[in-house]
């Protein structure tokens, strides 16, 4: 694992998908008028016969994906997270989830990483996709995981939702990192606090662990790229060895990773104080990711502050620097 500031790359998803399609002629890609933005201009230009731009018609796009998958194709459906989950939810459930077809919904610009305001900010996508039986839900953290996720999902018989950052993607993990569809990963082991996280909140969670370590708080960091099915055993084992749990996610606190972890702890009878760091059941507004993450409590300092409260530590929580990630000044589209 590297250290911040992390190097960044562009189009890791687009490149991985082209490589997968070169190896497998059953891979088909659709687009919903966001071809370059979802990096599949690379696929379109390499395999035009297997690329279909459905236009701004996500219900139809998901239905077509279901039909293609029913006849044996592995279908990737990249668009913004809101447009492949919230907008065509019934189609996802009925045309993909229920028949358990190999459709891969790929949602870019998760949570508050979109400057486009509530219409473009997927703060409920994980909750929605978790509620679909048969759906595997991934919230990956870096370019290494994105590439591995594309290949891992290629062999999954059922449907999946892959949630990933758009634009400049950090490289956090080395090439020997292995994303497994049934495993959470303990990246740091501590004995006071467990931070469970995924996706774009991984860098902030690691930074929070460093800040806390500087004040003598030993922190486990559990990275959960596969939110569903949740690797409850790994999460529970980590939480059981510490006094409190903070779950940090770039998503609503309702229905996402925080809910999944809380459910697992409660059902296992593991009583640990828990706080969810996430969007607090509200809609945000347009703005830069750095601005919105700070305003809506998704910063390193928020993870540190919740830990400080939970562990009932004296005085003010230590100061924590924001993790600066290149945003590439993305527009809403």
């Amino acid at each position, binding site marked *: 694992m590297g250290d911040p500031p992390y190097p960044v790359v562009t189009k890791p998803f687009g490149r991985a998908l082209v490589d997968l399609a070169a190896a497998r002629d059953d891979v088909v890609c659709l687009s919903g008028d966001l071809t370059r933005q979802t990096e599949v201009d690379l696929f379109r230009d390499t395999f035009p016969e297997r690329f279909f731009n459905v236009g701004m018609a996500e219900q139809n796009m998901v239905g077509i994906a279901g*039909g293609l998958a029913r006849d044996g194709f592995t279908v990737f459906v990249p668009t913004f997270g809101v447009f492949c989950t919230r907008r065509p939810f019934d189609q996802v459930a009925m045309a993909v989830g229920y028949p358990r077809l190999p459709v891969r919904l790929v949602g870019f610009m998760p949570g508050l990483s979109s400057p486009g305001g509530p219409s473009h900010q997927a703060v409920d996508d994980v909750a929605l996709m978790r509620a679909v039986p048969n759906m595997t839900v991934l919230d990956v953290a870096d370019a290494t995981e994105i590439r591995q996720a594309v290949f891992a999902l290629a062999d999954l018989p059922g449907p999946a939702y892959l949630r990933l950052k758009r634009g400049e993607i950090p490289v956090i993990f080395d090439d020997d990192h292995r994303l497994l569809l049934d495993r959470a990963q303990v990246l740091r082991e501590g004995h006071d606090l467990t931070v469970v996280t995924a996706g774009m909140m991984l860098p902030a969670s690691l930074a929070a662990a460093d800040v806390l370590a500087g004040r003598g708080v030993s922190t486990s960091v559990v990275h959960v790229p596969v939110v569903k099915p949740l690797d409850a055993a790994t999460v529970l084992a980590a939480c059981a060895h510490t006094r409190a749990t903070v779950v940090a996610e770039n998503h609503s606190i309702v229905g996402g990773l925080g809910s999944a972890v809380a459910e697992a702890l409660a059902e296992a009878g593991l009583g640990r104080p828990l706080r969810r760091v996430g969007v607090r059941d509200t809609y945000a507004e347009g703005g830069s990711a750095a601005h919105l993450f700070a305003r809506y409590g998704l910063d390193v300092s928020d993870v540190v502050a919740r830990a400080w409260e939970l562990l009932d530590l004296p005085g003010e929580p230590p100061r924590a620097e924001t993790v600066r990630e290149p945003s590439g000044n993305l527009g809403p589209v």
Partner: protein
Amino acid sequence: MQGTDDQARGVLRPEHETARRAAARIRLRAVRMVGKQGFGYLGQALSSAELMAVLFTEHLRSGIDRFVLSPAHYVIAAYAAAVDLGMLTEEQLATYGDDDSALEAIGTERTPVVDLTCGSLGQGLSGAIGLALAARLRAEDRTVYAFVSDGEMEEGQLWEAAMFAAHHGLANLVVLLDCNNSQVDGPVSDVTTVEPVTAKWQAFGWHAEEVDGHDVAMVSAALGRARSAAGPAVVVARTNALGGITCLPGGADAHFVKLTPELVEQAVAELEEAIRG
């Protein structure tokens, strides 16, 4: 050229007699299936009997073509039609409406006979497009028949799909549209204006022609032309959701017909006569 003209006009040929009798058998079986509980989706079988009969007996190539039933509550008609093809038995039909029956009233993923069906309306054409694209990608000679109902035209997704199919010139896609002017809240024309139906599909770039959906010869001829059209094609079938049985009261709720035992008896007698005749 006489044959071609006859086909165009929908002149009844001996093979159509097979379809006509098959339609009567679909109605008879549907009456029995619905009659057991005294209510159900009989109107859907009555409006679509000739469409299903013609499609199954004269056009659909078993094991090659695909059959998408967009409105899954029409599946009663497909069950009834499947008996003639040896895909289901009369004994299986008799379980319709029972708990744990394989023949659910609204079709699901475990439904036999159909390749794809959608209880949530307006979605079938998109799935059919997926199947048509799959056939095109593999260069397979296969026609995807999508049965769609007129009420489904109120769902926006249907028009998203219609635009896509025309843009991509999906000549292996044929829609059989049952315009029975019936939906849950009453006549479609009372709920919203979907007319002019044929002109709408034409405006969306489809080969579209309108037929009397109870005239087996016209339906068959139109389906033949639809299959050979250069792009996606729709047969707009004007039907009656209480059609083919004279004993049903005129004002009945066609979407979900209620049948007394006396009505079942009368309808069965009438349909058995039609099958003999």
